[in-house]
C-alpha cells in the first residue's frame, strides 16, 4: 500500500466519521432495545395481533428501519428516531386493540341489555297474568262464598230483605210466655253458631217480637229476654258476645194481624239479621 492509497483511505474514514457522526463500533442503542422489547411483547399478545394488525405492522416497519440503520452503523439520530416511532406505534397498536375490543364489548353488552329487557318484559307479563288470575280467583271465591252463604241461610229459611239476609224463627224456640229455649231450639242454635264460626267477618242482630196479648211493657221485656237467651246460647257455643246485638221490640212491627190466632202466631217471632261482610247490620227505619 503506497502513500497515496493511505491518504485516500484515511480520507474515506474521516469522511465517514464526519458524515455518520459517530466514532468506533456502534454500541447497543437503549432506545432501540426498548422499542424491540415493547414490540416483542405486543407481538406475543394475541389480542393486539388480532385486533390491531395494521398498527402492529407499522410498528414493525419502523422498528426494522431503526434496526437496519443501526446494523449499517448509520446515524444514531435516525436509529433513535425510528425507535421512537416504533415505540409509539406499538403503543398505538395496543390502544387500537383495546379500542376494538371495547367496541366489540359494547355490541355484546348492548345485545345482552336487549335480552335482559325482553326478559324483564316477559317476567312483567307473567306477573301481570298471575295477578289477573289471582284477582279472578278471588272474585270467584267471593262469588262462591256468597252463594254458599245464601245456601246456608236458605237452609235456615233466611230471606233476602232490604236489610240483607234475615232469618225468622217462630214457635220453635220458646214456649208460651217463657224466655227459656226449648230443647228443639238446639238445632237452630247449632246452625247459627256454625254459620258465625264459618264467617267470622259477619255479626248478627237478634230482634225479639211478641203478639199484642199482655201489657206493652211486659211484652217488650219478654222479647228482650228471649233475644238475650238466644244470644247466651250462642256465646256458650263459643261465639263472641261482641258479634251479637239484641233488641226487644215487644208488640212493635207486627207482620200480621193480632185479631186472630194465626196472625198472632206470625207475630210471635225472633228475627236474626245477618250483617254484611264488614259486620254492619242495617237498622230498621224508624
Amino acid at each position, binding site marked *: 500500500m503506497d502513500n497515496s492509497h493511505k491518504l485516500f483511505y484515511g480520507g474515506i474514514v474521516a469522511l465517514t466519521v464526519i*458524515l455518520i457522526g459517530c466514532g468506533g463500533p456502534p454500541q447497543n442503542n437503549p432506545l432501540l432495545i426498548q422499542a424491540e422489547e415493547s414490540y416483542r411483547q405486543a407481538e406475543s399478545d394475541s389480542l393486539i395481533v388480532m385486533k390491531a394488525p395494521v398498527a402492529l405492522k407499522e410498528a414493525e416497519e419502523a422498528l426494522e428501519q431503526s434496526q437496519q440503520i443501526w446494523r449499517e452503523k448509520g446515524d444514531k*439520530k435516525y436509529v433513535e*428516531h425510528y425507535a421512537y416511532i416504533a415505540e409509539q406505534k406499538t403503543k398505538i397498536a395496543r*390502544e387500537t386493540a*383495546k379500542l376494538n375490543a*371495547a367496541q366489540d364489548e359494547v355490541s355484546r353488552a348492548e345485545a345482552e*341489555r336487549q335480552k335482559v329487557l325482553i*326478559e324483564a318484559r316477559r317476567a312483567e307479563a307473567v*306477573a301481570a297474568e298471575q295477578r289477573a288470575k289471582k284477582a279472578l280467583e278471588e272474585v270467584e271465591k267471593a262469588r262462591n262464598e256468597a252463594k254458599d252463604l245464601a245456601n246456608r241461610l236458605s237452609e235456615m229459611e233466611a230471606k233476602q230483605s232490604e236489610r240483607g239476609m234475615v232469618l225468622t224463627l217462630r214457635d220453635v224456640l220458646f214456649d208460651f210466655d217463657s224466655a227459656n229455649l226449648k230443647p228443639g231450639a238446639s238445632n237452630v242454635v247449632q246452625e247459627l253458631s256454625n254459620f258465625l264460626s264459618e264467617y267470622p267477618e259477619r255479626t248478627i242482630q237478634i230482634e225479639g217480637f211478641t203478639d199484642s196479648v199482655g201489657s206493652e211493657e211486659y211484652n217488650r221485656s219478654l222479647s228482650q229476654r228471649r233475644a238475650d237467651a238466644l244470644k247466651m246460647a250462642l256465646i256458650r257455643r263459643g261465639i263472641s258476645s261482641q258479634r251479637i246485638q239484641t233488641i226487644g221490640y215487644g208488640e212493635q212491627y207486627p207482620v200480621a194481624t193480632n185479631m186472630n190466632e194465626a196472625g198472632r202466631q206470625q207475630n210471635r217471632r225472633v228475627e236474626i239479621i245477618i250483617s254484611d261482610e264488614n259486620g254492619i247490620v242495617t237498622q230498621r227505619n224508624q
Partner: protein
Amino acid sequence: MKHWILPAIILLMMGACASTKPPTQQLTQLETSIKQAEQVGAENYAPLELREARKKLEKAREMVSQEKYEEAELVAEKAMVDAELAEIKTLSSKSQQAVDQLRESIRVLQEEIQKNINREQN
C-alpha cells in the same frame, strides 16, 4: 475499487441534505392531527401524549425558522405519532367507559327485575 465510493459519497451527501425546503405540508398535517386529538377529548384522556405532540410542533416550527428543515421534519414525524397515540388512547378510554356504564346499567336492570320477582313472590 473506486466504482462504489463515489455513489456512496453521493448517497451520504443526499441523505445529509435531503431537506432543502421547509416541511410545510407535514406541519399542516400535524396541526390537523393535534386538533383531531383535542376534539375527541385528549386533553382529559391522554394529556401527556397531547402535550408531547404540541411541544414537538413548537420545536418543529422553531427548526423551520432556523432553516433546519430536516430536523423540523423529523420532529414533526415524531409529533405525528404522539398525536395519533393521544387520539387513539382517548377513544379507547372512552369506549372502555361506555362498556363499564353499559355493564353497570345491565347490573342495575337485573337487580331491579330480581326485586320485582321477589315482590311478586311475597
